[in-house]
Structure formats: C-alpha cells, structure tokens
C-alpha cells in the first residue's frame, strides 16, 4: 500500500551537516573550559541532539575557519582517558574511531588542555596522538597557570609533539585566530602528530597485534572490523565497555583467551603498565617546556576554599546558597509564570470568542491551549534554576557542593552529585530531572531520576492547600508558633522525602546494582563564570524543554481532552436548554444577579453532566470499587485519574465535578464549602472527612500524576521503559500510602473531628 506521498515521507531528512567539508572533534578533561571554547568558536551556530540509544548529548556547531571553509565542530563529553567503562563513555571513543552511528567520520582532533595542570591533561593527549588523525592542542587557562607560577613554552612543546600547540584564553577570546589558522593548516595537510609516540613493551604490543588479528578473523560474527586501537583498549581495560560488548557476541571462549593474552602481555597489571608508559612519555614531551615553582604560591582559590569547604562556614554558605536558589525559583519566576499563564488564558479566550461552539473549539481551547499553557508556565522556573546551576558549575562551586554532600547521599547509595537535582525537584521535578545530566555515572543518574519526582513539587501545593484549609482544624501549639495546619503541610513535604530514601536504597541494591562508582572528582580552581556559557546553557535547556516536552505534552493533553469530551451526546444539551428556557420564563427580571447566578449553576451542572457521560466519567464509575478502600467515591477517583496531565488539575476537575463556581475569584472558598456539603450518592453521609482528606493528600504526595515529568524521563533516558516503571512504582506506593493514611486515621477516630 505504498503511495508516492508515504514514500516521500520515508526518505530521511537530509542532514545539513553532511554537506560540510570536514568534521573536527573537540575533546579534553572536564573543567578545562571546553564548553567555553566550543561556544567561543561556534557562537550561536550549534545544534543539540542525542546519539541513538544512549543518553549522551550530541552537540555539533559550525566552525568558520576562514572566509570560505566552514566545518563541523563536534563537542565530545569531557573525559580523563579513552578507557571506557560505560556505553556513555564509549561514545567518545567510537566517534573518534569513526564508528559511531549518527556521526560523520572525524578529520581532525582539537584537544583542549588546562595549562595550570598539564600532566594529567597530557595523559589523554598521549592517547589522542595514537589515533592516526591530525591533532591541534589548545592550551587553555594560561592566565590561571600564571597565578600558580606555571609557565609553558608552547613553541618548544609543539616541536616535541610534532603538532601545533596554541595558547588560548577561551573566556577572553585570545588565541582564537591562531587556533583557527592551525586547524585549517592541519586539515589541509591531514597528517597525524610527527613527534615520538609512547612506546609500549614488546610483549604488550605482540598480544595487542594478536588480538587484533583474532578479531579481524571474527569480523563476520561481530558484524564489523575491529581496529587496532580498539583491540589495544580491549586488552588493557579488563571489564571495560569495549570488552563487555564483544564478550556478549563472542562468548566465554573469547574472555578466556583474552585473559591468557593479558597474562602474557605484562607481569604487572595492564592499566599500571599503560599509565607508567604514558606518564613517562608526558614527562619526556612536556618536561623541557614546563616550568613549575618548587613551592607553589598560595592562590585565591585556596583562600576561598578555606571558607567554602570549612566544616562550619562551608556548611553555612552551602545552606544559604541553596536557600537563595530555592527561593529564587519561586519568587523570580512567579511574575513571569503569571504572565505566561494569563497570556495563554487570553489566547484561549480570544480563540474561544472567535470560533463556533463545538468539538474543534473545545479541542483547541480546552485541549491544546490549556494543556500547552499549563506546561509552558514552568519554563521560567527551569530557566531560573539552570541560571544558578550554570553559574555554580562554571565558577567551580558545584564540585564543592558535591564534596560537602557526598557523605549524606552515599548512605543510600548515591553520590554528592545527586543533591542539586533532588533539591530542584522541590520546585518542579522537570528541571530537577534535566539537571541530572551533571551525574556521569548512568546508574546513579537513573536512580536520581526515578526518586526525584517523590520530592513535593510546587504543583502539589494547591492540592495540599485546599484540603488542609478545608478539613484540618486550626489548632495552635506553643503559643501560636506552630499550627496544626502548618504541621500537616510540613508532614506532607516529609512524606515524599522519607519514602525516597528507602526507594533509592532499594533501587541501588536491586535493579540498578553494580560496581560502586568512584567519587573521584577534581576540585577545579575557582574562576569568574563566563556569561556566554551561562546564558547558552539556560537557552539550551529552556529550548529543549519547550520543544520536546511541549510536543509530548500536547499529544497527552489532546488524548485526555478527547476522553473527557466524547461521546458528548446532544440529548444533554437539549435537556439543559429546556431547563434554562423554563427558568427564564419564570424569572421576572432576567438581568437580576440571582438569575445570572442560577444560569451559571445550570451551565456548570451541564458541564458536570457531560463529564459524567464522557469516557472518563464512565471509567470513573467502573473503577470506583478499586478506590473504595481509600475512602473515595467515583468523583474523587475520577478527579485523581483525570489529573494525569498535572496534579493541580484535580482542583479544577473537582470544581467541575462538584458543579459549582459561583462567581470567579473566590474559587478556593467555594470549592471548600462544596466539598464539605458533598455526600455519597444515595446517602446523606458526608463524602469528605479528615481521613479522606489525608488519604487524597498522601496519594498526591507519592503518585506520578504529571505527564510533563513522565515525558522528561522519556526524553532523558531515551526509552519508554523508565517512565513506565516510574509511573507504576509511584502509583503502587501512592495507593498503599493513601490506604494506610485512611485506615490509620479511621482507626484513630479522626473522622469525628470537624473543623
């Protein structure tokens, strides 16, 4: 059933990058100013995507070398070595070897090194020099090196390496023209570094060659030809990712032969052999051009750290900073959020006023505009959070925060790097989950992503407020310092936090079990943040959120809208039209306030009737039995289910369900009154009491009713498996928690207490 139209759609979109002349890979240690250099070289001309199947970001920019040549600059993840331990770390190696799906072949390497700490940086460069590709070294942070009394003779070093070494200050833009010229020259020549390469002992070379030949013979089985460099890594990195992915294909024999080869290759452990040879090479190449004072002068960074990581002032500063961040997410974004929200309301109103009544209008106004608007209001929060994260990361404080918090989080099997995402999730889980990108270990990152939505986000607040305000008595303790209402609210915030601890612990013990990742992190020198890098980061994250989460949210909103709109029988409308007509006839003055109010009531009742008759309403009735143990009737159950797009939706859904809305503006009070008056169907027994209110609140504290969060988990993990898992485990927890809250409160007799 192939038609010309569908064929045209099947053709993959042409990658504009494919037309460019060449691809250059930018690689270096973390904290070397790699992102700053990338931004300085490419400007706003960048494209962010994902490599297929993994969570690594694929960032490509257009690098203008001179008036004619524009090449691709590919930003690879920061790394200390090419010894990959996870699929994410393997990406860099595969891209460099030209065997990564979704990436062009690399024509040259731009290696960035921190001049203030050259030895460790040149360890990686020694590996890059062996790739048979042209290499240009950008020696960054020469200014920081100077404050440490370190000088490097770039000309001499360039001679020893046999390839250009260009001193740059990426944040000030110095040395960039020279860097472009060197890249242009190396691309034209196409020659790998001419200097002496690290020399490995004969037995190690022989075994690497042997393994290379073996793997060449097994190319049919593997499905590709493994090159010599990958064979070398497989031999040295026992248990590394390059070995693991082949072991799956080649079986136990392969592992056995490999271990025998390792035994013959060296008397000392192979990684130690590699490190010995490479650091000897670094000393030989770098030594003559490097001058380092015997007694390094104390730097400003050391002075700052005496305060910033001190047990008392460090902790205080940390708490203060977090408070400022947390508070700013609320206060800074609030006016903009209100602006966006009212903008979407106005848009909805405008569209509503200019369209004929019917399904299409409802789809646009109630489905698309309300749904997308609801998500877009979170955009300011995301921008504010990432503004702070980018500053803290770029100036070097983020690794100190991880240093301070690691002990606390390592108790549940996480590391200090999970702290910021968890804290951010108290505002909104979406930016929190997005900020887990700073966690390199994939298992840690996934665990953090899965527990982050348990933190009580701002969308839960309206649910807590209405229920606490309506049903929890106003009792004062300690002379009014504490109130029962305030304590209940605090308790709700604790529920998520206390549940997250065992959940994280359990995940790390079972599903996401594995070697404990090392907490080896560099504490880089402090520096003034680069504003371009900070703003680019905010822009990147904001755009990613708006585009990707926005499209998924739009589709979910439409589905939910359709379920609560259809079948929309005409009989209901006719019935209410009759009632309205009869009412207007009876009324003496059709303009009187009571008449208008009554008309309003009728309209609300009509909406309620539609909802009851809709697929969602029917579902509510059919699932009522399942929620009975929680003390809920079909209306509460339906409200909870219908709030799948976002938790706060329950408030507006309940308003619709309980058929009210007398006059706008005092909705909270009105809803409270209506909930107090609500009774069970066919019974005068009140529907709500303290146990029911508690059960609803605990349910919302633990449940996963937030399509934006699920969409962002899908985006960040690149699979539907984890959002499904997250939804399932949180819903089960929420149900059990709500049941326990209801049963516990009933047993204590709390249903007898009224406000």
């Amino acid at each position, binding site marked *: 059933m192939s038609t010309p139209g569908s064929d045209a759609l099947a053709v993959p979109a042409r990658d504009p990058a494919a037309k460019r002349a060449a691809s250059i890979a930018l690689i270096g240690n973390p904290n070397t100013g790699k992102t700053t250099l990338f931004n300085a070289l490419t400007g706003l001309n960048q494209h962010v995507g994902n490599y297929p199947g993994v969570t690594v970001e694929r960032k490509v920019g257009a690098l203008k070398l001179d008036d004619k040549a524009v090449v691709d600059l590919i930003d690879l993840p920061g790394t*200390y*070595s090419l*010894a990959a*331990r996870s699929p994410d770390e393997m990406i860099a190696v595969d891209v460099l070897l030209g065997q990564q799906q979704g990436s062009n072949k690399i024509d040259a390497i731009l290696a960035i090194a921190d001049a*203030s*700490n050259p*030895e*460790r940086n040149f*360890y990686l460069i020694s590996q890059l020099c062996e790739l048979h590709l042209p290499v240009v070294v950008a020696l960054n942070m020469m200014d920081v090196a100077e404050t*440490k009394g*370190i000088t490097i003779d770039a000309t001499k070093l360039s001679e020893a390496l046999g390839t250009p070494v260009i001193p740059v200050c990426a944040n000030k833009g110095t040395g960039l023209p020279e860097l472009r010229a060197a890249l242009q020259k190396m691309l034209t020549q196409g020659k790998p570094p001419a200097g002496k390469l690290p020399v490995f002992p004969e037995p190690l070379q022989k075994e690497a060659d042997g393994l290379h030949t073996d793997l060449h013979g097994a190319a049919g089985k593997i499905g590709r030809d493994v090159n010599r460099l990958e064979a070398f890594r497989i031999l040295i*990195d*026992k*248990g590394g990712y390059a070995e693991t992915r082949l072991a799956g294909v080649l079986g136990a024999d392969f592992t056995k032969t490999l271990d025998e080869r390792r035994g013959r290759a060296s008397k000392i*452990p192979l*990684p*130690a052999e590699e*490190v*010995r040879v490479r*650091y000897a090479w670094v000393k030989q190449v770098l030594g003559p051009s490097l001058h*380092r004072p015997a007694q*390094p002068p104390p730097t400003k960074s050391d002075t700052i*750290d005496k305060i910033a*990581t*001190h*047990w*008392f002032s*460090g*902790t205080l500063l940390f708490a203060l900073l977090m408070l400022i961040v947390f508070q700013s997410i609320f206060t800074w974004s609030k006016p903009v959020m209100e602006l966006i929200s009212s903008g979407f309301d106005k848009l909805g109103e405008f569209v509503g006023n200019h369209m004929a009544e019917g399904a299409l209008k409802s789809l646009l106004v109630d489905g698309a505009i309300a749904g997308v608007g609801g998500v877009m209001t979170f955009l300011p929060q995301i921008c504010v959070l990432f503004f702070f994260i980018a500053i803290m990361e770029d100036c070097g404080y983020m*690794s100190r925060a*991880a*240093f*301070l918090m*690691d*002990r*606390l989080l*390592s108790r549940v099997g996480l590391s*200090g790097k999970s702290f910021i995402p968890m804290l951010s999730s108290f505002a909104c889980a979406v930016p929190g989950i997005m900020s887990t990108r700073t966690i390199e270990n994939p298992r840690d990152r996934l665990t953090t992503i899965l527990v982050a939505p348990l933190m009580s986000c701002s969308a839960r607040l309206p649910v807590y407020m209405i229920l606490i305000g309506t049903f929890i008595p106003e009792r004062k303790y300690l002379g009014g310092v504490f109130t029962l209402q305030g304590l209940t609210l605090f308790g709700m915030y604790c529920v998520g936090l206390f549940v997250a601890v065992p959940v994280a612990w359990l995940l790390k013990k079972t599903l996401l079990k594995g*070697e*404990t*990742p*090392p*907490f*080896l*992190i*560099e*504490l*880089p020198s402090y520096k003034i943040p680069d504003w371009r890098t900070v703003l680019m980061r905010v822009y990147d994250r904001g755009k990613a959120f708006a585009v990707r989460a926005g499209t998924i949210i739009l589709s979910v909103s439409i589905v939910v809208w359709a379920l609560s709109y259809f079948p929309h029988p005409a009989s209901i409308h006719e019935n209410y039209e009759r009632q309205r007509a009869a009412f207007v006839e009876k009324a003496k003055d059709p303009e009187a306030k009571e008449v208008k109010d009554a008309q309003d009531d009728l309209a609300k009742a009509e909406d309620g009737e539609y909802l009851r008759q809709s697929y969602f309403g029917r579902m509510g009735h059919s699932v009522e039995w399942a929620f009975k143990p929680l003390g809920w009737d079909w209306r509460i159950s339906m409200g909870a289910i219908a709030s799948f797009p976002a938790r706060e939706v329950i408030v507006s859904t309940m308003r619709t369900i309980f058929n009210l809305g007398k006059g706008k503006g005092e909705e909270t009070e009105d809803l409270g009154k209506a909930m107090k008056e609500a009774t069970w169907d066919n019974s005068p027994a009140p529907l709500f009491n303290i146990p029911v209110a508690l059960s609803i609140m605990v349910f919302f504290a633990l449940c996963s009713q937030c399509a934006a969060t699920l969409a962002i988990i899908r985006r960040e993990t690149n699979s539907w498996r984890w959002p499904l898992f997250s939804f399932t485990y949180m819903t089960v927890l929420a149900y059990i928690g709500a049941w326990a809250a209801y049963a516990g409160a009933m047993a204590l007799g709390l249903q007898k207490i009224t406000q």
Partner: protein
Amino acid sequence: MTTLDQLKPGQRATVLAVSGTGTAIYQRLLEMGVFEGAELSVVRFAPLGDPMEIRLQGYNLSLRKAEAKLVEVNEVHAG
C-alpha cells in the same frame, strides 16, 4: 602499612602501591595520577569526615576514604 585515608590534613606522602587491581576505581586512580612514586598531600576532610581532598600534580582531587584505603603511602613527613 599506612594508607592514604589515615593521613591528616597538611601531611605529605609518596605513593608506594595501589591495590584493587581489575576494578574501575584502580584504573581511574592511576589515570588521575595516583600511581607508584606519585607525591601528594592531604588538604582536608569534608565536614562529615568523608570524602577527603588531596593535592597532586598541582591540582586538587576529592575521593572517598574507601577509595583512599586502596592507596598505600610511605612514612609521612610533615610539611
């Protein structure tokens, strides 16, 4: 036998050996410059006693005590 985690802030030492062969931590420690013969000093411990901060090759590295236990160091000389 003295291991890195037993040192006090301000103490200097030379690495004698690194254990834990075959693990990711072992290889990473080596690559970061913590190998036989490397000179390092302890800067401080985090407020809760763990992790610790050391200085080597002119840069500062943070590692957990459990990882520092893998690093055997020579007699300490104050400095």
